[in-house]
């Protein structure tokens, strides 16, 4: 059963992920995404009756840490990657509500 991802779907996803694509890219991604989904759809042919949904690919569970405070990172190092800094904070364009 072939699923078609349209250019419209790509535009919706691009907006949600804040991407901008050219028309050519949109066409290309629509085809690529359709192929991926169709490939994965082959799993639908397998009988999964009584099989637990896979949440995680590794068979690990319950990996926890104890509630212990560890030293944080030095602020100067932390802010080194920031595009803009003021008063020890990240500075971003004014957020209007």
């Amino acid at each position: 059963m072939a699923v078609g991802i349209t250019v419209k779907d790509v535009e919706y996803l691009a907006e949600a992920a804040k991407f901008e694509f050219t028309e050519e890219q949109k066409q290309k991604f629509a085809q690529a995404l359709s192929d991926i989904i169709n490939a994965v759809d082959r799993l639908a042919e397998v009988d999964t009756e009584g099989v637990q949904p896979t949440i995680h690919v590794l068979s690990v569970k319950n990996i926890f840490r104890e509630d212990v405070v560890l030293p944080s990172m030095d602020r100067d190092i932390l802010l080194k990657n920031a595009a803009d800094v003021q008063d020890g904070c990240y500075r971003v364009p004014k957020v209007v509500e």
Partner: protein
Amino acid sequence: MKYEVVIGLEVHAELSTQSKAFCGCSTKFGAVPNTQCCPVCIGMPGVLPVINKKALEYTIKAGLALNCRIARYTKMDRKNYFYPDLPRACQISQYDVPVCQNGYLDIVVNGQTRRIGINRIHLEEDAGKLLHDQYADSTLVDLNRSGVPLIEIVTEPDLRSAEEAKVFLETLRSILRYIDVSDCKMEEGSLRCDVNISVRPEGQKEFGVRTEMKNLNSFRAVYRAIEYEANRQISILEEGGTVLRETRRWDDSAGKSFSMRAKEHAQDYRYFPEPDLPPIEIDDEWVEEIRKQIPELPAQKQRRYVEEFGLPEYDAGILTSSRDLADYFERCVKLYENPKTISNWLMGDFLRLVNEKNIEISDVPVTPENLVKLFKLIDSKVISGPIAKTVFEEMFDTGKDPEAIVEEKGLKQITDRDELVKVIKKVLAENPKSVEDYKNGKKKALGFLVGQTMKATKGKANPQLVNEILLEELEK
């Protein structure tokens, strides 16, 4: 037409763990901006978050206290959205299998018990804090709060008035504090609440169109916002209009709500399982272990205070509203046989001073031992009632032993008959008019003369004895 208001709440409570949900940074409130951060909680690529076990246990504990079913198999999910307070552009939250589901909380409103359904409680991380006000053209981001564990508690749309919503929140806060999972300080943002509200003609089955109200920073704001929004929606319907489904922002100083810019289409959070965090299995043994840590909750405690100590419902309700106060009361009751006296003092001068000085009950310097000593000084007539109040205020300020205060300030009650007779003779001589009034049948004058005597002895006279002597002298 009569309308019914339908309210559902989404309550966010920050969990009182020492460290963040997925890394070891401190959760302490009020630190210098961006000093409690690390690559995990500022969303650097390639880091590995690990769940704080205590945060999960607190979530389970809250679920048990709110009568929820605890999932035996659960997981964390990514909720994707863009906002400057969320550096990773996705929040670790829970989508289709929250830790807790299908619970309820009983609240008492105007003497009636109402059962409010809890749809779900899930664990997630808090976002950072945006500082807008002092900068004209920019917003500053402080990520100290980013990654602090939160629980979101979602109720069913079972609340029917602003009053019910307020009582629900008070009851919920008291329980979360009792079980020690959150300090629930609204002023520090560790308890936050969004309100979903709609109205419908009474008797109608279908819900009306709802709006969501944000920016409610106190219980009073919740109450006012609901009243305002219900009236706004009713007037729209009365005028034949339709309510718009939207998010509104409450402005408490204006006493109004404003529409926040409507989104072009519904937000798509594109949830998917968090690949960095393996799933969680919770077995019965673990749940029972956590259940054992839940103390007696306020409603049970209130019932017990009525039955065991013979206190009025009202007293029991106030004493059990905070766990610290209830613990204080119980320490007193072990030392003193009259629970009602303890209750009167705690509800009266004790709470009055706590509120006036705006301190926590755990910071009150008066020990239960010293409070009971004060009661015994009154019982044995060493000091009078009015003097006891003065002594108590001093104890509240200094934490001193009441016996020492009475000794130091010479506050002992005057019970010496001869001494009082002298004072009273003087009072009578100075107030011939009142004496005459009394003799002419104006019995009220006696009260005035008692007052004058108390004043002359700076409140130290034994009031019964004063009454007795006054009557004798006046009848002469």
